[in-house]
Every structure is written in C-alpha cells, then in structure tokens.
C-alpha cells in the first residue's frame, strides 16, 4: 500500500538492531550516559545521529564521528526511557556507511605478519570479531596469519595483550611503549612505589583524573584504553624491576566500554594472584579494582589503601 520511496530511516530500520529509532524524543540521556563526548570527541552525540537519520541526512550521518566511535558498550540502552537500542541503530548506520564505501577513522591494531603464527587466540579474544585468519603468501610461502578488519576494530587492545608472540600492536599502547613507562627511576628508600594502570573509561569525574595526576613520582600512572589491555607479564615485569605494587583500575562489571574487557582483566589478575599464592609470594601486591559510574572519589581511597598496605608490607620485610 505504501508507495513512498524508501528513506534512509527505512534502510536503517531494515537492519536488525536498527528498529524503533523514530521513538527518540531527544531527552539526551544517551549523550550524558556515554563518556565519549566528554573524553574523546566533543562532536559525539547519538541523539543527533538518530535525528540525522530521521531527517534523511545520509552523508552527514556517515561522516559523523558518532557512527564510528560507538563501541557498543550499551550503557545507554538500559537508561533510554524510550527503550531504543541505540548501539544497534548506530551499528546499522555503520553497516550502511561501510557499504557506501566509508572507512573507520579510528586508530586500529596492526599485525606483524612475520611474527604471527596463525594461532587464532586474537580471534577468540576480540569482542568485535575484527581479526580473522587468512591464507596469505608471505616471503614466498603460503602461511596462515591473522588479518584485522579495520572497520570493526575499536582499538581496545585486548588482542594485543592476548597475543603470545607480541605480533599485534596499536599505536600508543604497544608492548614497548608500556614497558618503557613501567621502568621508573628508583625513589628514595622507604617510600613504596606503585604502578597504576588506569583504563580510559572508568573515571567519569574530571577531578578523579586530575587527582591521579597529582600524586608524587612514586605513584606512576599508565593510561591504557581498556583494563583488558593489561598483560600479567607487565605486572611481573614491574615487580621484578623493583616496583612494590601494581593497581589495575577498570570499569564495574557490565559497564566495560569494550563489552568484556573488564571481565578478561579480572580473570587475568585473579589467576595471577592464584599463581602468587602457589609460589608463596606476598599477596595483595597486584590488585584489580572495578570502579562503577557512581563511585566518585573512590580512586583516592583505593590508591591510599594500596600505598598504606605496601608501606606496611615493606616495613614487615
């Protein structure tokens, strides 16, 4: 019966996940629930992207940073009063954009094909199904290596940590760059030294971020995109190079910006601590804290408690 030409909104709705976008009444809940505008891109705005779709602004929507930056963490979905699955809608727009020949502007991971053994661990680790194994001719021989779909990769670095051969890297958070930050100069004796790995998304309030920066040199802060980027070897390396404790801060369960990064890292730290236990190495020196969206000011308590514990531990030794 409907002879109207298919609109952009119809195309989005036709893709599973893209339904109900017409229900948005622009309350802005999704925008303020999401941390991307606050932390990364001032132009990021899911509400406006949905509006662009409704107003048939195809090119603008495809070029909008919102289309590409959404990591489908789904913090906004349970908060939306109209129950719109916003990340599903954005995913549908992204799919149309890729079909139209647009490419993700994000910094993504790269695979060093000379190192990759084709084991496929990265394929299992990635929350976005970005890497996959391909047969390829390398140095004159056919070989099986991992290839990353740049349009799917969100740059969380979970695969970088997972790769047993160090074949995957992402600019800014490659293994070398993080190791370089761990190796800090020795401070005066008696003061405990602490390395804090902080995920980019768990600290919502600006004062919490600036508070971390205000600690003296014995508290080294290393920013990583996701707590899933943490590699247990980094903690071991830190301890070996004379650092007293390692604190990893990630998001609360269910609030991870990269779907399951916080789950991966909590498993890693739990296993590491179990190993320490078996080796009778003092426990409590590597800790994982999960900071929720409403845990304002908690980071101060956690760092202070850790420093206190390490001071006591040093004293006892």
């Amino acid at each position: 019966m409907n002879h109207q030409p298919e609109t952009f909104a119809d195309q989005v709705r036709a893709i599973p996940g893209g339904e109900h976008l017409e229900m948005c009444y622009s309350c802005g809940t999704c925008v303020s629930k999401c941390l991307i505008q606050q932390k990364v891109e001032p132009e990021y705005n899911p509400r406006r992207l949905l509006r662009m779709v409704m107003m048939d602004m195809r090119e603008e929507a495809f070029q909008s940073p919102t289309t590409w930056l959404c990591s489908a963490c789904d913090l906004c979905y349970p908060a939306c009063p109209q129950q719109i699955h916003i990340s599903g809608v954005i995913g549908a727009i992204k799919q149309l954009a890729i079909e139209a020949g647009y490419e993700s502007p994000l910094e993504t991971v790269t695979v060093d094909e000379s190192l990759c053994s084709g084991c496929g661990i990265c394929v299992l680790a990635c929350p976005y199904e970005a890497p996959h194994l391909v047969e390829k001719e390398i140095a004159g021989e056919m070989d099986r290596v991992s290839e990353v779909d740049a349009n799917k990769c969100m740059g969380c670095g979970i695969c970088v940590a997972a790769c047993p051969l160090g074949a995957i890297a992402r600019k800014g958070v490659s293994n070398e760059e993080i190791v370089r930050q761990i190796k800090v100069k020795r401070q005066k004796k008696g003061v405990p030294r602490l390395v804090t790995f902080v995920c980019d998304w768990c600290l919502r309030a600006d004062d919490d971020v600036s508070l971390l920066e205000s600690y003296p040199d014995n508290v080294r802060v290393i920013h990583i995109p996701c707590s899933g980027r943490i590699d247990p070897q980094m903690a071991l390396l830190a301890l070996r190079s004379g650092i007293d404790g390692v604190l990893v801060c990630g998001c609360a369960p269910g609030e991870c910006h990269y779907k399951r990064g916080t789950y991966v890292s909590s498993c890693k730290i739990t296993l590491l601590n179990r190993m320490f236990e078996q080796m009778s190495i003092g426990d409590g020196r590597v800790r994982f804290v999960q900071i929720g969206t409403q845990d304002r000011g908690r980071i101060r308590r956690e760092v202070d408690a850790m420093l206190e514990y390490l001071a006591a531990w040093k004293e006892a030794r």
Partner: protein
Amino acid sequence: MVDAARHPKVDVRTYTEVERVEGYVGNFKVLLREKSRYVRTDRCNGCGECAKVCPIEVPNYFELNLAPRKAIDVAMSQSVPLIYNIDLDACIHCYKCVEACGKLEAIDFSIEDKLVWEDIGAIVVATGFSHFDPSVMPEYGYGRYPNVITAMEMERLNNSAGPTAGNLIRPSDGTNPKRLAIINCVGSRDKRFNPWCSNFCCMYAIKNAILVKQAYPDMDVTIYYMDIRTPSKGYEEFYDRAREMGIHFIQGRPSLITEDPETHNLFVHSEDVALGHVIEREYDMVMLNQAAVPQPDVDTVSSVLNITQSPGGWFMEYHPKLRPMDSPTDGVFLAGACQGQKDIPASVAQGSAAAARAGRVLHADEWEIEPVVAVVWEDRCVSAKGKKCGLCAKACPYNAIEYEQGKAAHVVTAKCHGCGGCVAECPHNAITQMHFTDAQILAQIHALLAEKPEEKILAFRCHWCSYGGADLAGVSHFEYSSNERGLRVMCSARMDADFIYEAFRLGAGAVLYSGCHPQDCHYITGQRVGASRAERLLKAFEKMEMTPGRFRVEWISAAEGDKYARVINEMQAVLDSIPKEKLMEEIERLRPEMERRARRLREVPQVEEALGYSRQLEAAMVGKEA
C-alpha cells in the same frame, strides 16, 4: 472537610474500608469494615493528652517519615474527625494513655472491627493516586544519597507546619542548600517504568522552585526537563514568572547523579540539549519529581466495585470524551486521579460532575434504561435442568447475568446495557434481546435476501460505529455498490454465527461482519466477543473452501465513511470476479453444510411464540418491579 463533617446530611466514615458491593444502580448494598481505633469515637474530644504521655515513637507517615509520631496519635493535626488512633503494632500496652484520658474513658482496647451493611444509591470513587518509588532507579541514588529527596518530601520540608517549620535543610548535615536541582519525569514518560506523562509535575516543579526562590532569593534553582508542559489557563504565565525570577531551566534528562563522599554534594550529569554538550553541575540538594501511579491496592478496589482498569491500572471511564466521570458500572462514578493522572482544578471539576451524576440517581424514583435488555426464557435454559453452562455470564461485560448451576440464568435488568453478547453466545437460544430477537433479525435476513440473493452483500453493522460509518458514507455521498443490504444490531457481539450461516444458506453473495475498533467499543469488551467469533467463522469458511472475500470482517468507526464505501466496493469487486455459474455452484455446494449449522437458529421460537414470550416477560417484569 469540617463543613462536610458538620453537615446534617453528610455522614463521614473515616478509617473504614469497603469490603463488598452488591446490587445495582440505586440499590447497592455495601459491606463496610469500620476498623477499630481502640478509641471510642463518641467519647474522644481530641485533647491530645494521651499522645503527650505515650512513650513510643514511630515514623510519621504523614511527614513522609521525616519526623516521629506517637503510637497513639492523629494522622495530622487537621484530621476530621479529630479522634485519636492507636497503632497496635507499635503499642507496648503500658496504658499510660488510659490514665491520661481519665474520666473521659475514651480508650478501650477491647473494641473490634465492625462490619456493617449499608443501603447505598450511588457510589463515587475518589481513591486518588500514589507516587512512584524512585529508589528503583539506581542512577539517581535515591535512598543512598541523603540529599536526594522526592517532591513530596520537599513539600513537607518547605511547609511551615512541616517537621522543620518550613526551614529547607539538607538531610545530610542540616544546612540550607545553596544550589538546588529539580529533576522532572522521574519514572514517567519512561517505558521502563510508566509510559504516561504524569500531567501535573511540571507545574509543581515550577511551584516548588518559585516557593524556594521566594524564601531564599540567593539560591541557584535549576529545573531539568525533557519538555515543560503547561497547557492550562495561566500555567504558561506561571512558567514565564519562574524564568523572570532567575530559575534556570535546562532541557535534558539527567542520566546519572554522583555524590562527593565527603561533602555529600551531588553532581548531576546531563546533556544540555540546547548546547548539544554534556554538562556536569554540582548541587547541594536534588529533588526528584516522581511519576503519579495508581494506588497500590487498585486491583482490590476494582474487583470490589467491578470497575475495569485502563492500561497502567487507572480506573476505566465509560467514555473518554463524553462520560469521563462515569464508570462502566451504572451508579458508580469516578472523581479525581483514580481515573487518570490529573491536577487539582481538573479533579475538582470531575468531582463536581460525578456528584451531580450521583445526585441524578438519588433523586430519581425510577431509573430509565434502554429497552434493548436481554431476557432469559427459563424453560429453554439448560442450567435450569442441571447442566453446566454459564456461557452467557462469561460473555457479559457488565456482570449483569447471575449464573448458578441448577437454576436458570438470571439477567439483572438494571445492569444490562443491551449489547446482546449473551444472546449470540447462548447455544440453546434461551436468551433473547428485546427489539433484537432472533426471530426479528431472522425475518430481516429473509426479507433482505428474498430476491437474487447471490448478487447481494449483506452487511451486519454495529449501532455505534459501522452503522454510523455507513450513515456517514451516505451523507458524504461516497458511492458504493447498490447491492449492499445493511442490518443493524447493537454490537458486533450480537452478530450470532447462526445469522451468518443462515445468510449463506439463503444464498447470499457476500456477508460483511463489521463493528467498532477494539478501543472504541461501546460495551467495554463486546467487540472482543464479536471479534473472536469472527475469527472462528473465518477459519470455518476457509475449511469449507469458500472463495476468500465472500465473508469479510472489518472494524469501521463512525468517522470512517470512506472506509465503509471502500470495503463494500472491494467486496463487490470480489463478487464480480467470480463467474456466475461458479458462484451458484459454490452456493449450492455449501448449502447443506450451512443448513446443518444454522439448524439451531430455525429452532428458536418463531414470531408468534416469541411475542408470547415477550408479553409474558413484560408482564412478569412489570409485576416484579411494581
């Protein structure tokens, strides 16, 4: 309230619950439970000496638990009647109150609940509404952050008779807040909780903001809103006044409140929709404007009074536009927010209208109803012969049929609205509807299909919607096939399957089964009864391999004249598309089956006999009523 209590013709029963309601308009019998106060109402003079000596303090629900009250107390100081009441769950039986009461001897722990039956002519339901509990929304932290309060708590804090004597203080430290945020639409316009707009919260957000701003002119007052809805007279001007006073309005629904654990200050995270940017602002106190929701015991009240509920649990009105103060049960009226979220002026208007409607009942010696009521032929009802049935009682949307196995079904005439659902549902033709008897409708079907029935489209129309639609099609000069023959019944529920079979037995070319859209039904659930029957018919005809389109079901409102004309023309097109010989062959093929199915209809008492029954019944009814 005091005036009402003093009025010689007003009997105020407080602390009393309605347990059961029987009877019908003008003749209700109501069972009341007068709950025991453990204080004699005839002796207590409200002096309050008992409360002074009572050693037990419990949270004061009237002050929203912001202050204590005694185990013997009145709900509030303006209570009418001013009679004290013992909270027996908290009382430790020290009997200090008995001593304090002294010679009055008003306190009596042996008083029990009293059950009394009262004769009532009309009932007005004004049970009001309740508030959404925001503690189920973790993002706003109500219940965890001390300085997040609800609008009702703000009402008490701001009230000069309230627990702080009108001094607005922060629960965390007792200081006056300097920055106050008000958040609208907490739990309303939110599909996770209540989809509706709660109607009056925008106005009381502005009211509270203005009150606070008048008392503390330096305070930064901000209202977070999605849309400000100020639709009544003077409301928009009030909103303007708030803006002129310097109250901030930020369009954007906050997604999160965080708290500074040391100062207990609150940070409201929201998008400023006008700017398109996320803002985080610090406040000393946040007030949540909760949604209006139905009372928690709405299900009990609706089953006691036999009032249906709209989606969400509000009481259903008879008609949303024309009779918003009537419930579907005659003699029961609705006033105020129990029928739907509304503000004070609207509640007063509805209350006055309901009182006037109730007065109409009370002042009438006789109550006129439509004469199209259902009547039972007791000698035909199988229940009278001890068989299990009760289909008529199930079909009745008004609970007007009393069914008991072993006795013939009985129609309470005063409750019957005349939809005819029971008549069509009765498998034994033991009920008929005055003026729409089976014999009358049968005669119409025969007359309409007397000549060239295979060319005719027999249209069953319901009185309120599709008949009006057909009428509008005529008045508007929409052309439709002249082969259409219309037949009016009160509701699609009356369209007996046997009528359809009989029409096809007589060789009708096509039959239209039409009524109201489900939400427009004049008889609450009548359309649903008709619609489920139509479903069964469609399936049966499909099995019989009848050409699709010869039997059609359409819901057409009185405003859809164009649709009525279109449907009839489409049916005519279906008839035209079937070659004549093929149609005649199909009619002949189906005739034995239709004959078998419509057999029962031809067993109903025919005109003479039916008239005899009607005369008997009329005589019996007049005799009974007189």
